[in-house]
């Protein structure tokens, strides 16, 4: 296999991480909604924590994207 083909395959494999991070983000919001529907009066106070969890999960997906881009353009 030559380098160009291996690069593209590697970038594709790295992009799987983005999809997995999507599962994580979905988990964050689903757990928040589950809790918020049980106790709607407490939901507004937890919005900051919701976005912290969202940011942490999203960051990992973005790092996977960066890895894919680095493999494609910088290696």
């Amino acid at each position, binding site marked *: 296999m030559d380098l160009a083909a291996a690069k593209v395959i590697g970038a594709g494999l790295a992009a799987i991480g983005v999809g997995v991070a999507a599962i994580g983000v979905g988990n964050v919001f689903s757990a928040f909604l589950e809790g918020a529907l049980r106790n709607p009066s407490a939901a507004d106070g937890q919005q*900051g924590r919701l*976005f*912290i969890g*969202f*940011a942490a999960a*999203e*960051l990992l997906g*973005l*790092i996977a*994207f*960066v890895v894919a*881009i680095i493999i494609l*353009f910088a290696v």
Partner: protein
Amino acid sequence: MAAASKIDPMHQFQIEGLSGQLSGAPFVFTNSALWMMIVLGAILLFMWGGMKREIVPGRWQAAVEGLVGFVTGLAMTNIGKEGRAYVPWIFTVFVFILFSNYMGLMPFGIVEAAHPFTVTSQFTVTGLLAVISFGIVLIVGIAKHGLKFFSLFVPHGTPIGLMPLIVPIEIISFMVRPFSLALRLFVAMIAGHILVEVFGNFMVQGLNAHSALGVFVWAISFIFVLGVNALELLVCGIQAYVFALLTSLYINDAVHLH
């Protein structure tokens, strides 16, 4: 045909000198600087329009007051009553990121010369914002608590046996903060714009193919572009909010330790 019209999604992030060549010159006015000034102008316009201090606020003043109140509330709930001292920086960061994100999404690209440049898609810009936030945390923490500031790395009630494990982890997670802060914003912007660009290119190529399949590709891509743009509008707001939120949380760490 595929080779002739290769998609070049990175071109929109290229920094170009508007007043001469980039290399060798000590100072060149670039498209990044131009769009930063446009963002500044938009912010000034927005703020001045709403700062007439009318007793009964009009729509414009209500919008500005809402924005200021939102950021003040964010700082006060996360930092406590000392938070008011940090509202200027958090507000600056929030409004600058919000405006430059939305400026980058504006459809001025119809005119080739007026193609918008997303200021926050450059790591230097977001990195500088993150480094200033991190610097504020360090300065405030050390000025307020002196050397006790380093107890930040030892959470309450850590067993002595776990210290060699917990302390390095806390130090690493503390040092990584400016990187994660800057990386999140800049990658989110780049990813969204690449996506829009790629699907926009699919639309053009689909119509240029002059076949039924091409029209089908165009229709699907059009729906995608709509969806991605809607998502981008959401992401732009969320990224600005997350940056301001995390900045205020980090400042809270420095003010109160834990």
